[in-house]
């Protein structure tokens, strides 16, 4: 009798915990669908406590990685340095020619406008840890709502797009990387201006575009198109690798090598201003409106 009672109690506890988890998933999904996703006080508190500890846990791994990259992996650095110098000289030459071409075509004004568009206060944040699950691609950063970071703000590095802030606590935030399977960014081929969508595959990126006549070739640079209102126009995403042959299918795909090395990412910049579209999408009663002022004052 006691054993039966104990089994029933355990089954009840299992059902209770599973039900609680399921309810949390539904609530979280709904919060994501509505845009704002400020973590509840208990999960936010757990994240705020865990982030400094996570930094501490990662120290031995960082030391090991630093030793590898600073000493062991530097054996070919002299040759690489020579190659890079050559490439730099070539790039400078190419840059000069392009500037001349731009002046000739009268597009420098447009570039100046774009620069103004990009004049967004940015906040530097350290990556505290990568995804604790092998099925998703996200990062934890050590800046949160207290620093002006809110859901929907783009994460970038000096090389290009990194991802998007998806959840925030007071002093930490979670960002979804471009590589995540749930990530999709509207992109344009810089050379031919053909449009498409860059999607994460978990391990890499693919560029999905429509049209048999689309001009997409290996080596083409993909930049954000600005459509969708999440990322401003002109941020680098990646370089086209192999392009699917033209077939009867309406949609074609190309593999993309991201410009950002996600494995070596240590710092990111949070763009502290969301586009008007995102502000509408992420507007909540609780005031999830970004206020870049305090973060801008923090000196980043």
């Amino acid at each position: 009798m006691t054993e039966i009672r104990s089994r029933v109690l355990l089954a009840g506890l299992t059902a209770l915990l599973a039900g609680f988890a399921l309810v949390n998933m539904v609530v979280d999904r709904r919060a994501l669908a509505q845009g704002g996703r400020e973590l509840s006080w208990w999960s936010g508190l757990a994240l705020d406590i865990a982030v400094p500890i996570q930094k501490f846990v990662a120290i031995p791994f960082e030391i090991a990685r630093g030793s590898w990259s600073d000493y062991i992996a530097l054996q070919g650095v002299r040759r690489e340095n020579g190659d890079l110098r050559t490439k730099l000289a070539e790039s400078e030459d190419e840059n000069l020619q392009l500037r001349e071409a731009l002046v000739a075509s009268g597009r420098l004004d447009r570039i100046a406008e774009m620069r103004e568009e990009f004049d967004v206060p940015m906040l530097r944040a350290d990556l505290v840890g990568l995804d604790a699950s092998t099925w998703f691609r996200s990062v934890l950063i050590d800046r949160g709502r207290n620093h002006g970071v809110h859901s929907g703000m783009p994460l970038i590095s000096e090389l290009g797009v990194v991802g998007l802030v998806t959840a925030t606590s007071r002093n930490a935030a979670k960002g979804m990387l471009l590589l995540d399977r749930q990530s999709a960014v509207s992109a344009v081929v810089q050379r031919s201006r053909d449009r498409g969508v860059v999607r994460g595959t978990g391990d890499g990126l693919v560029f999905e575009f429509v049209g048999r006549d689309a001009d997409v070739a290996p080596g083409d640079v993909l930049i954000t198109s600005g459509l969708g209102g999440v990322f401003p126009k002109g941020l680098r995403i990646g370089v086209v690798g192999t392009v699917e042959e033209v077939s009867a299918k309406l949609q074609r795909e190309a593999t993309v090598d991201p410009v950002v090395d996600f494995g070596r990412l240590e710092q990111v910049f949070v763009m502290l201003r969301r586009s008007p579209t995102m502000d509408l999408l992420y507007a909540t009663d609780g005031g999830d409106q970004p206020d870049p002022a305090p973060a801008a004052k923090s000196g980043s």
Partner: protein
Amino acid sequence: MRRTLALLAIVFGVPMLEGALAPFLPAAFRPDLPLLVVLALALAWRNTATGLVLVAMCGFVVDLFSGALLGQHALLSVLAFAAARALSQHVSMIGTLPQIVFAAGLTAVHAIGVVGLTTFFTPGADLALLRPGVVLPRVAVNALIAPTVNALGAALVAWASGEETGRRPLRIATRSWVP
């Protein structure tokens, strides 16, 4: 004190360790430590009720540290713990081979659970992640690591419960026998 430390190590330490390992190993070849710890606890933790609560908390922390929906790993951890516990009462899990086989099966089912729940709750997501090329390396890595994690888990549980057995008086139920 020991018990608290052990609980903290399991609930927070394991997901953190997994996150710290992430930059060094590709996802497909990274052992799923939180899942393996669920299996280890199912085999070693004495009290089923506290074990369930523990793995649920560990799952929530994994959700917090990952791109999953809050509750996704918690739900799967609870179900995995319950399944492993139930199976271990009927099938002997002593020895490396049974643990390897069970870890492989659990990883495959867990993969279906993660991808299935993501697909169900996320518009636009698909089941393409369940390709053999994605799942099989994870199954192989987890299966190979499982006996080691189980041994470490058993050692941790023994260490944590040592304090309690030291303080608690040993009670032996005696029954009078009349010939």
